[in-house]
């Protein structure tokens, strides 16, 4: 391939509009990406980001557009195949890879699938895949089946696959949603590398810190309208959040002292071989304790032991002063524990089932009449109560939960647990895949619960999250709680430095 003449813009869209039914998804939006630029597309869920991407990639045809130009060429009607051939690639959040095929096969996939069947030359395929990974500066077992890799590496495979198609404009939809901080850093390195090679990257992310770190410019979209294009230089997270949501989002340290509050949960010398050891943890009623640290530090494993899903090898736990030794999740829930799993998609909710059923699943007993039947009235009342209480935006309670946005789904998870009237709530990465506005909503609820006396353990990768919402911060590393911090006596950069050192 010969080097194309350097264009100034990888993409130019002028006054693009698209409506679905009566909803104006895009309203005369301008969007420009310079060649080789890292550009961030920011906005809340449903603001029109995905529609914009789908217009560029030919999935949707806009109702009207003054100009659609790719790499200096005006394109009138574009199909997904043409878009790919011109060098536009999208890496969706679900990656659209093949779990049972090898790394090499996934990377070379588009090369393998021609219009006519032809023989597959594995040697050549591997060589090309290795070449692309080399370009990214990544080493990987090419023969490993994709499902055996962690998500971060699958992401790299998806990027490699895009490069294999000579992509010059790559859209990345929430690429870091399920990555830890160090994995994110590595991904951002790759993004920088591609940008240096002249590949333009459009980054869609809810994590504002990341957006500001990686992108040169940011385009903000709200309710289908362009809010503006801003350089990230000098932009703050608070300002960006305000632009996205239209109102100021308070993000201040909110730690309190609770000297008189009774102890709700206590762990002494809790250990489980190979996962964590000698954990001492006290959570008072009404207190939010933040637990942070790198992945593999044993945070989720500790939560699982607290929920009775795994057994500790040694150590004791007490709940409200009484010895607490749960043997199953059921037993833990009965004693007043609640656990918002980090894996909302496969563990936190039953995606195929309705909003109503997902809400009442934890409190069936409260709905059962003397005859042993579930009362439809009580069920409907309970669901209506919690949907109102949590401010969940839904169509009908019998709609599948998968129709809701991440933020609204997470509110249903919270409702499900709060309905059990728990004494200790464990929130494990509660804002994964949740946008800025909805995050604020979730933490407002969390704050209110703490004020009402609920003990809360907030597990999070995001340092800013524990800094702003916890009363105390526990830093966990290699299975031990290494240090406790008071959010009022440390800054975000200081804490980050200690965690990622």
């Amino acid at each position, binding site marked *: 391939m010969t080097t194309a003449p350097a264009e100034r813009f990888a993409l130019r869209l002028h006054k693009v509009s698209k409506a*679905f039914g009566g909803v104006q998804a895009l309203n005369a939006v301008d969007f420009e990406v310079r060649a080789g630029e890292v550009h961030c597309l920011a906005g809340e869920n449903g603001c029109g980001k995905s529609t914009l991407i789908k217009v560029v990639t030919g999935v949707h045809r806009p109702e009207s557009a003054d100009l659609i130009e790719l790499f200096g060429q005006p394109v009138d009607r574009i199909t997904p195949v043409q878009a790919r051939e011109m060098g536009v690639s999208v890496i969706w959040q679900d990656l659209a890879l093949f779990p049972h095929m090898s790394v090499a096969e996934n990377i070379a996939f588009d090369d393998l699938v021609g219009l006519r069947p032809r023989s597959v030359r594995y040697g050549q395929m591997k060589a090309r895949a290795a070449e692309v990974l080399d370009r990214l500066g990544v080493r990987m077992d090419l023969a490993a089946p994709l499902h055996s890799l962690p998500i971060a590496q699958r992401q790299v495979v998806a990027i490699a696959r895009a490069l294999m198609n000579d992509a010059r404009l790559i859209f990345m939809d929430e690429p870091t949603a399920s990555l830890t901080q160090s994995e994110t850093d590595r991904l951002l390195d790759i993004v920088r590398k591609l940008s240096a090679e002249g590949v333009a990257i459009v980054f869609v992310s809810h994590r504002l810190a990341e957006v500001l770190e990686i992108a040169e410019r940011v385009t903000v979209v709200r309710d289908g309208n362009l809010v503006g294009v801003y350089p990230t230089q000098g932009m703050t997270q608070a300002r960006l959040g305000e632009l996205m949501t239209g109102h100021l989002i308070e993000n201040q340290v909110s730690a309190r002292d609770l000297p008189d509050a009774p102890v709700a949960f206590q762990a002494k010398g809790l250990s489980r071989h190979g996962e964590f050891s000698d954990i001492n943890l006290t959570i008072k009623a009404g207190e939010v304790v933040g637990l942070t640290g790198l992945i593999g530090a044993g945070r989720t494993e500790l939560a699982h032991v607290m929920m009775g899903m795994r057994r500790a090898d040694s150590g004791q736990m007490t709940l409200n002063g009484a010895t607490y030794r749960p043997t199953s999740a059921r037993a833990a829930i009965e004693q007043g524990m609640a656990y918002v799993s980090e894996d909302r998609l*496969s563990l936190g909710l039953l995606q195929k*089932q309705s909003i109503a059923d997902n809400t009442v699943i934890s409190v069936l007993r409260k*709905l059962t009449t003397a005859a*042993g039947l579930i009362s439809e009235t009580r069920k409907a009342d309970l669901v209506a109560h919690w949907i109102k209480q949590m401010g969940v935006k839904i169509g009908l309670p019998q709609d599948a939960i998968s129709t809701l946005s991440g933020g609204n789904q997470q509110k249903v998870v919270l409702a499900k647990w709060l309905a*059990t009237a728990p004494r200790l709530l464990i929130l494990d990465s509660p804002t994964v895949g949740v946008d800025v506005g909805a995050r604020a909503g979730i933490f407002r609820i969390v704050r209110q619960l703490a004020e009402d006396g609920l003990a809360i353990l907030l597990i999070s990768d995001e340092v800013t999250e524990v800094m702003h919402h916890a009363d105390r911060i526990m830093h966990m590393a290699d299975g031990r709680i290494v240090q406790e911090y008071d959010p009022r006596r440390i800054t975000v950069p200081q804490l980050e430095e200690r965690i990622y050192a």
Partner: protein
Amino acid sequence: MTALTKHMARLKSGPAGENTGLLLMLAVLVMAFSLASPRFLTGANLGSMGFQMPLLGLLTLAMLAPIISGGLNLAIVYTANICGLTLAWTLMQFGGAEAGIGAFLLGGALAVIVGVIAGAIMGAVIAYVGAHPILVSLAMMIFLRGLGEFLTRGGDISGFPEYMRVLGHGTVAGVPVPLILFAVIAFGWHVLLRRTPHGFSVYMTGSNLKATEYAGLNAKRTLVLIYALSGLLCAIAGILMAARFNSVRVGHGEAMLLITVLACFLGGIDPFGGHGRVFPVIIALVILQVLSSGLNLIGANQHLATAVWGLFLIAVMVLRSDQLRLLGKLFFRKDN
């Protein structure tokens, strides 16, 4: 505008829409057959349909619940056979055709116990060992068949007391007794699945076992219980089979196994578990029965009826597919 779309969504996704489609299908078939044959809408024909359907119906219900729980029970027919054998042996011990009603009750109770145990074993292996339901129930099916053939030497046991004819051939106010039995059990099954905590748990387990356990439900116990209940229905089917044919033989009703799966899917049960209702499945059963009786009446070969069932199911799957909906959109030019 939004109210309208919401209403449309309810119609489309809700059971009401599903039922309407099936009822419409049924109405068309009934109309077509009554035009083709004057004997179709007679008491005699309806009566014979009412005697034939319940057996398949009970086995279908026994298949339905495990499918909703995310599995399958391939052992239903042989469980029914073994339960029938249990009853037959008990009756033989008390004099065969001369056995009293007490012997029948004892035999029936023993049959139910055998059915429940067979089901519970399958459920326990599926839940606690984590083996695939197809493999487990297939193994149970082969075991029961082999056991039954070994014990009966491949022959049949016949000559039951006269009063058992009432169960298989009697009528109450013109309604066949088997049909009444089926109606009562189907209603109970509906209540169990839709209104009890256990039924709720079956649906949840069927869509995601792990998430169900995380939510604090006992998904494993749910599986054991639902297979045990499936076994219970098989036992009742086995007793009914003995009463209808006045004999018990291992392999009786073997052909019904796959028809029950067909009826479940025709009735809109999600083959991957988590969704499905009793009522549409019953309409589906009636449709299958109407097809077979109707074709029989207009003089078609019985084997042809089976072939038509198969074609019919394929047609229904095509009609329900997303691709067809996309095609429809294309025609109506609703760009989306």
